[in-house]
């Protein structure tokens, strides 16, 4: 219990409303029982990274970035995997989990009988998925560092970037979940996630695509996240990064607002 109170003290109260914080605390309690799930989520990106390094890397050789520089393939893919895992974690937490709590476990009905309101719940849930995402991101960045895949100290900025990606997808995911009627709808979510994962300059530069497809790929929110983190770990800072960050921030904010609105409609008819 003390570890939890400590964790909650570290999170500034100004960031999360006091009431939203109790929603966070609830999730901490839950994962105390099933920490293995939390822990195991860390491995999937590691497996992909290892596959990129020993497998695909040997087949592909080096990759050229925008300015024609040659980059080791694993160093190219790793930041994208960090971005993708931030997306995956946020989407899983904000879709399947929230749907379960909303429709089956009736967790929110219980919460709403207390002073908590729909906005507190939305904020608390998104906050929780950010914390979970941050744990994974820190772990992955450390692994990248040990594996010698960081080419710049700017890589520490990969953490806030991963959180931004998490915020964007948690907001959007939760908003989408509020419209879902059955578990079958999640097949669409999985499909969308897979498309984003595979086609957002994750495994190869966009230059592989014909020009029109390059434009389409830029609509992918994950693409913006990948560009952001890749610039930090490779140490190629540019002003255009602001645009990518802005895109993600806007996506998360709209998602959060829609979620709170929809939760109010669903839970307090």
């Amino acid at each position, binding site marked *: 219990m003390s570890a939890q109170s400590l964790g909650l003290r570290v999170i500034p109260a100004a960031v999360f409303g006091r009431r939203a914080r*109790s929603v966070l605390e609830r999730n901490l309690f839950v994962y105390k029982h099933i920490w293995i799930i939390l822990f195991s989520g860390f491995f999937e990106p590691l497996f992909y990274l290892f596959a990129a390094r020993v497998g695909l890397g040997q087949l592909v050789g080096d990759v050229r970035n925008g300015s024609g520089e040659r980059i080791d393939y694993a160093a190219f893919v790793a930041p994208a995997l960090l971005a993708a895992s931030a997306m995956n974690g946020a989407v899983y937490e904000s879709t399947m989990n929230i749907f379960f709590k909303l429709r089956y*476990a009736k967790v929110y009905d*219980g919460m*709403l009988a*207390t002073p908590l*309101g729909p906005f507190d719940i939305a904020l608390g849930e998104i906050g929780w998925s950010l914390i979970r995402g941050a744990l994974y991101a820190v772990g992955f960045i450390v692994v990248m560092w040990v594996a010698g895949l960081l080419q710049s100290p700017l890589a520490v900025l990969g953490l806030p970037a991963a959180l931004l990606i998490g915020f964007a997808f948690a907001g959007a995911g939760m908003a989408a979940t509020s419209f879902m009627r059955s578990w079958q709808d999640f097949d669409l979510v999985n499909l969308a996630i897979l498309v984003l994962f595979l086609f957002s300059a994750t495994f190869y530069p966009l230059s592989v695509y014909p020009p029109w497809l390059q434009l389409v790929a830029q609509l992918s929110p994950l693409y913006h996240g990948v560009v952001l983190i890749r610039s930090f770990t490779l140490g190629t800072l540019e002003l255009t990064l602001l645009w990518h960050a802005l895109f993600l921030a806007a996506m998360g904010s709209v998602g959060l607002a829609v979620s709170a609105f929809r939760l109010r409609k669903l839970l*307090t008819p």
Partner: protein
Amino acid sequence: MKSTHRAAEPVDEAGPGPQNESNDRALVEARGLTKRFGEFVAVDAINFSIRRGEAFGFLGPNGAGKTSTMRMIAAVSPVTEGRLEVFGTDPATHGAEIRARLGVVPQSDTLDTELTVFENVYIYGRYFGLPGEVLRPRISELLEFVQLAERGDSKVEPLSGGMKRRLTIARALVNEPDLLVLDEPTTGLDPQARHALWDRLYRLKQRGVTLIITTHYMDEAEQLCDRLVVMDQAKIVAEGSPTDLIARYSTREVVELRFPVGVQERIGDRLDGLATRSEVLPDRVLLYTDDGDRTTAEITRRELAPESTVVRRSTLEDVFLRLTGRTLVD
């Protein structure tokens, strides 16, 4: 910004307390209270007022509008029309403050199945902003009170229906509410569990907690409620104490007769003058009378020869069926 936040949670500062309202003022007051979902009218311009310290019942068949009314009182469902005041404030603008002083036992348990018994109450208390130091001793007391002290570390899933219900009540009491709202608290429980629960609710009432109960068990209403309203098709059709209602809408006693198949159908016209009111059902005949013995004597004199005769006291169930009819709802 900060001050509004604090004001929203009176629990932390002053603790729950009746300082704001004087004793004669209603705790809940509804005038023309209406709830519509699209075209459907769930609650149709009802009036009622609930006083501090009483146990107030909403009776009615399924779909009568009880739960909708409860949800409006609990500030989780906006009022469509009319006026509703809870603790003298408007749920639309003071929802969080009202909920801070309420305990809610919903119709189906909303227990957190991913948490243990203790954690369910603890986390619920955290939703009210109560600090852990306050919660821990309070939860021990509450679990003791609902006879779950030994099950603190148990998961929710293996608990029996009655235990889950008692846990929900413990959870609803964690903020020491002034008003406890119970929506069909004993539906689906076995007799032992129901009586255990009634016992706990009775003790709460003695401690001065105001109770609002919906139920379709008449014995429950008679046991627990000081005053009740009967709802049917979104409206209140009667109001009073259980004895009032029986006096007003039924007779002191009821004689139940069974006749052989064939006789039953043709018995109707031979019952004239036997009772204040009579009712011929497919399986039996009910005679509402103030003196059961005199009625049975008269039956013998007329040589009606029923297969069986039972004289019983009138109950709230008779009132209920009279007011809301015998047709199945749902």
